[in-house]
């Protein structure tokens, strides 16, 4: 049992949760994740560790209620507990001094970006961070990222905050500007965003690293469910990743595999919302 120390709703469907997990807090490095299972019968959900306090023995997780299981996790209040938290899994981010780097975060991927951007800055890099979301309500962690980045650019699709449009527009401007062109780009977010960024940097031959979040079960290399094509090779995101050279990632294959359970997930999500009273519409779980 892993105690939930705090649980704050920081934007629509997104919660910041601090969980007591002393061993993980001690051994985790930026870029690693945990697999969480709320109770008996629940799914195993991979979640990036955003931060850790080895002294207090806590880890910080950002959880977006995107499916039934994540919905149930975020509705567990502080003082409650999570049955299983296993980790830290995956390889730590490779943090080196590049010079100038751009970190791009889309949606909840921004939470994954936070420890990465912080570590890059601590390694002496000049960090420009670009974050984007549908609207101002979905922009997260902008204060924290502003603090740790040399510059922060915010975009929203509806223009309610920062520049109107997608993260790719300011990125294109920076890439075109010889004064700002980076030595490396880091991308974490929806697959189409990461794919678009990889295309933009490929032609300029700028090293680009994407953090992938495919379907996972065990997170230890045992099931093969998290496999993705990297160049000509099948790699397992949980043990070989989660970060890969974005220019080699088969993003189309990845997003296709991630849609394997879409039908089931929608049904379960509705059922979970119904169970916790978020919707008054009758719902049936198949």
């Amino acid at each position: 049992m892993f105690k939930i120390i705090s649980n704050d709703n920081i934007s629509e469907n997104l919660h910041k949760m601090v969980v007591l997990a002393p061993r993980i807090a001690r051994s985790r490095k930026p870029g690693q994740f945990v697999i969480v299972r709320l109770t008996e019968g629940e799914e195993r959900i991979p979640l990036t560790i955003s931060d850790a306090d080895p002294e207090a023995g806590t880890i910080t997780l950002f959880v977006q209620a995107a499916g039934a299981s994540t919905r149930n996790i975020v509705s567990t209040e502080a003082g409650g507990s999570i049955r299983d938290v296993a980790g830290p899994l995956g390889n730590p981010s490779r943090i080196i001094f590049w010079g100038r780097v751009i970190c791009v975060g889309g949606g909840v991927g921004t939470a994954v970006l936070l420890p990465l951007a912080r570590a890059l800055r601590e390694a002496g890099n000049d960090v420009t961070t670009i974050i984007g979301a549908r609207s101002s309500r979905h922009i997260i962690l902008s204060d924290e990222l502003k603090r740790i980045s040399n510059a922060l650019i915010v975009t929203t699709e509806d223009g309610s905050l920062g520049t109107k449009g997608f993260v790719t527009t300011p990125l294109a401007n920076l890439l075109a500007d010889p004064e700002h062109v980076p030595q490396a780009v880091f991308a974490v977010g929806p697959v189409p965003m990461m794919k678009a960024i990889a295309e933009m940097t490929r032609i300029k031959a700028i090293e680009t690293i994407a953090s992938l979040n495919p379907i996972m079960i065990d997170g230890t290399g045992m099931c093969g469910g998290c496999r993705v094509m990297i160049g000509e090779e099948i790699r397992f995101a949980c043990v070989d990743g989660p970060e890969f050279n974005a220019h080699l990632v088969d993003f189309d294959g990845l997003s296709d595999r991630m849609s394997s359970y879409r039908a089931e997930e929608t049904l379960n999500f509705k059922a979970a919302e119904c169970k916790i009273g978020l919707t008054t519409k009758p719902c049936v779980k198949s």
Partner: protein
Amino acid sequence: MRKIITPQERMAIKRVVMPQLAAEVRTRNFEEVNCGLSSNQAFTEANRCLQCKNRPCVPGCPVGVSIPEFICALASDDVPRSAQILQQDNPLASVCGRVCPQETQCERLCARGKKGESVAIGYLERYVADWAMCHQEKLLPDQASGTTGKSVVVVGSGPAGLTAAGGLVRLGHTVTIFEALHDTGGVLRYGIPEFRLPKKIIDHEVALLVSLGVTIECNVIIGKTLTIAELRNQFDAIFIANGAGLPVMLKIPGENLKGVYAANEFLTRVNLMEAGRSNNSSTPIIKRREVAVIGGGNTAIDCVRTARRLGAEHAMIVYRRSEAEIPARTEEIRHAMEEGVEFVMLTAPIEILATKDGWVSALRCRKMELGSPDDSGRRRPQAVNGSDFEQPAGIVINAIGTGANPLLTATAPDITLNDQGNIRVNSNGETSISGVFAGGDIVRGGATVILAMGDGKRAAVTIDEYLGQHPHT
């Protein structure tokens, strides 16, 4: 009292037939197929044993169970004594009685098998172990023998780990097991389906260890949560039994389509996460009418029978050799056939075809014929030119095998590995680091439950010796 029987009568008894659930019933549920022998059946079968003085069957058992002795006690109607003998030699007898390939081990060497059918040693083992499970009060209390003050950590709670832990705690050591998954049992729970090995058996064995004082902690991944170096500081000895892992890929086009599973993923979803079987499970599983499982081992058979139970009308095994070479247990194959599983033999998959939305639609296959024997002594399959055909399938499951998992070994560079990435051990089961022992699949590659248990049993003894020789400093 039952009556004494004459040698002629003994020879005339026919081998018992295991009562089993009817195929039409069991393909709709996950109930155990073999129902177990009645006490009369077990008693009669035990009386088929000739009590050979030279015990030909015993060398066939990887853990050296005193087979004639436990059967003799059973034949003389002393089940408690039989149970005591069996449990002393095999702490997981209820598991072995269900999943061991007796037909290639002890039963193959049985004198009665030379002219006729061998004694059903496996069925008797299961009978006695199950009896013991329900009649603990009639057995001498099982307990840890005081304390030596030495602590041992066991990595993995699969068959090797559980067996070693049982042996070590009974020798008086303090034992902690770390398990990477959220539940115990390793492959016994995530791999072997309940229709072969019900979870309550694993739960019972685990509860027994806990009652003896073994500490089990789940969700601890050695190599990630804690390293071998940290364990060496905290414990007097280590036994690594973290299993195999890493599915071997088919390396054919279409392997990443939606609807293609590695056996471990498919089985873990259904067995460990209860996908597709329990309404309480929120883990999804894809179900289709046509399911093709590639491979011929027990894992392949487990997958195909599971697919059948999840509703597949055409659940098939696609295997590149013939019936004669198939490595799965005879009983599993017979059960699968009774359940309507189709066997597409001498067939190799060459491509997985897709619908326009990226779902599996068919398996493109090539017919094979058998040529001369290869290194394994089995005849090598060779492609038959122009024999390609398409086998419709909505799900393809890759059950061709697993390789070594580098998760633990990558963070323990002083542990010497072989070319396949498996841990190298000496004849004592000790790795290149003193005090660190290893066994089971991480040493052997994909092997059987009983071989893993044999390693665990031996490790308990060698670790005990090691701890005696190396006083704690």
